[in-house]
C-alpha cells in the first residue's frame, strides 16, 4: 500500500475540523427545477392539482392525491405554522456554528408541509411553540436559494 493510499484509508484528516464546510446544496432535477427557479427569485412555489384542487409538496408532475397529470405551479403565500420540530445537538456539515439548531416541519397555509429551519428566533423549546405563525424567507446556499422560515411579522411570538 502506498503512503498516499494509506493516508486515504485512515481516519478523516485533522484539517476537516477547522476547514469551513459549506451547508449541503440541493441539486435540482427536471421535475423540481421550477421550484428552485422560484426560490432563486424569492418565491415559494408549490403545485396544485387542477383535477382535485389540492395543493401538494414535494414537486412532482403527478398529483399524489388523485394521480392526475393536470397540475400547475402556483406561488404559495409563504405563510405557515410550526407543525413539529426537533433540536439537533449534532453538527451536520455546515451547521457546526449553529448547534443546537432546530429542524422543523412547517405546515403551509395551502395545506402541504415541508421541512425547514427556523430563523430569527432562538432555537429553544421555550421560544419555539408548536403552531406558531411563520413566514418564508430564503437563505443563499451555493448556487441555490433554500426556503427557511421566521416568526411571522406582527405575531405575538
Amino acid at each position, binding site marked *: 500500500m502506498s503512503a498516499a493510499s494509506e493516508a486515504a484509508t485512515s481516519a478523516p484528516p485533522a484539517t476537516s475540523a477547522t476547514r469551513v464546510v459549506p451547508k449541503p446544496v*440541493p*441539486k435540482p432535477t427536471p421535475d423540481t427545477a421550477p421550484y428552485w427557479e422560484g426560490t432563486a427569485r424569492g418565491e415559494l412555489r408549490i403545485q396544485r392539482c387542477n383535477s382535485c384542487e389540492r395543493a401538494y409538496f414535494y414537486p412532482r408532475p403527478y398529483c399524489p392525491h388523485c394521480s392526475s397529470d393536470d397540475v400547475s405551479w402556483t406561488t404559495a403565500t409563504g405563510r405557515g405554522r410550526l407543525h413539529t*420540530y*426537533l*433540536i439537533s*445537538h449534532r*453538527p451536520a456539515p455546515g451547521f457546526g456554528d449553529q448547534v443546537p439548531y432546530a429542524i422543523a*416541519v412547517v405546515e403551509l397555509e395551502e395545506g402541504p408541509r415541508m*421541512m425547514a429551519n427556523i430563523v430569527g428566533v432562538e432555537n429553544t423549546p421555550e421560544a419555539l411553540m408548536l403552531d406558531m405563525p411563520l413566514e418564508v424567507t430564503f437563505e443563499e446556499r451555493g448556487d441555490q436559494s433554500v426556503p*427557511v422560515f421566521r416568526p411571522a411579522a406582527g405575531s405575538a411570538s
Partner: protein
Amino acid sequence: MTAIVGAAETERIGIVPDISALEMHAESARLAVADAGLKMSDVDGVAAAGLSPIAMAHYLGIAPTYVDATAVGGCSFLVHVRHAAAAITAGLAEVVLITHGESGRSRTGAPPRAPDPASPQGQFEAPYGTLGPPTMFPMGVLRYMKELGLTHEQLASVPVAQRRWSANVPRAMFRDLITVDDVLASRMIAYPMHLLECCLVTDGGGALVVTSAERAKALPGPKPPVYVLGTGEAAETPMVSMMEDFTTSKAFRLSSARAFAEAGIGPADVDHLMIYDAFAHLPIYGLEDLGFVGRGEAGAFIAEGNTSPGGRLPMNTNGGGLSYTHTGMYGMFLVQEAVRQLRGEAAAQVPDVNVSLAQGVGGMFMAAGTLVLGSAAAAGA
C-alpha cells in the same frame, strides 16, 4: 404453512471491528443452517439487505434459484420472511436463507453512507442539517406530545422498562438498571430525545432459515419449528417530513393489520411482543398503531410497567435496540428474540409464549414489516 427452522446471531455482537459486514452475513448464515439441521447445499433461496444477496450467496458457495434483495431499511428481514413464505407456498423455493450483517459501529467493510443531493432527501431535507436518524426519526415526538399528552417522563420510561429486561440478558450491551431521572439527565441528542432514548450503534449479524411446515416436521434438528402465522408489509414515505400524520405510522397500521388478519388473531392473543425501538417513541407509536392500547395511552401503559418483566404484555425482552444491540438494520434481532421466546430458550424467558408478534420499521417510519409467529400449538401443527 411455513416455518422458521433455523435462527442464529453472530457469536459476537456489540463492538466487533475484526469482522467485516459480509463475514457477519456468512457466519450467522452457517450457524442458522446448522441450527436447522440442514446443509448449505439444501439452501435454494437467499435474501439479504445491506449487502447484495448475490454477494452473500457466492461467499457461501450457493447458486440460488430464488433471490430477494428487498431493502426497505431495518424491517427488510421481516419482509424477507413474508416473501419467503409466499415463495415457498407457491413452489418457487424450498429452503430460504435470510441474512443480516452490519458493521454499524466499526464500519468494517461497510458500504458508504452518501446522500445524493439530487434525491428528494438531498433536495428537501438534507439542506436543513439532517445528520442520521437522530435528527429525523424523532420529528413527530413534540407533535405527539402536544396532541396526545405524552410527558417527557413517560417517554423516558421506555428505556427504563427495557433495561429491566436486558438486566437479565448476558449478551446485551447495556445491562445496568436505570431510572427516569437517569434518562432525563443523559446528554441531549436531538430535543426531546436524550442519549438513553436513542438506540445503540453496534456490529453484529443474524440469519434465519425458512421452509415449509411439512419439511420442518421432517428435519432432524432438536429445535421446534416456529410457524409463520401471519405477515404484513407496507411503505409510507421516503422522507420523514412527508409523514401523513406525525403522531402515528401509516406503515405500522397497514402492515400490522395485514398480519393480524392473515393470522386470524387480534392483539389480545399476543403473548410476547417485539417492537422495533430505534428511539424511545417507537414502542409508543407501535403499541397504539397495532391496537394494543388506545390512542394516547401507550406512554402511561409503559410507565406503569405493563411491558416490563412481570407485566401483562412482555415487550422487547432482549432489551431492544436501546439496550441489547442495534447494528443499523435491527429488525433481524426482533425475529431472533421472538424465535427464542417461542422455543423457550430466551435469556429473559417469558412463561408460556405461544404467539409472538414482531413489528419492524424501515427508515424513519418509511416502511414496516410485521410477523406473527407461533408455536406448534398456536399453529395447530
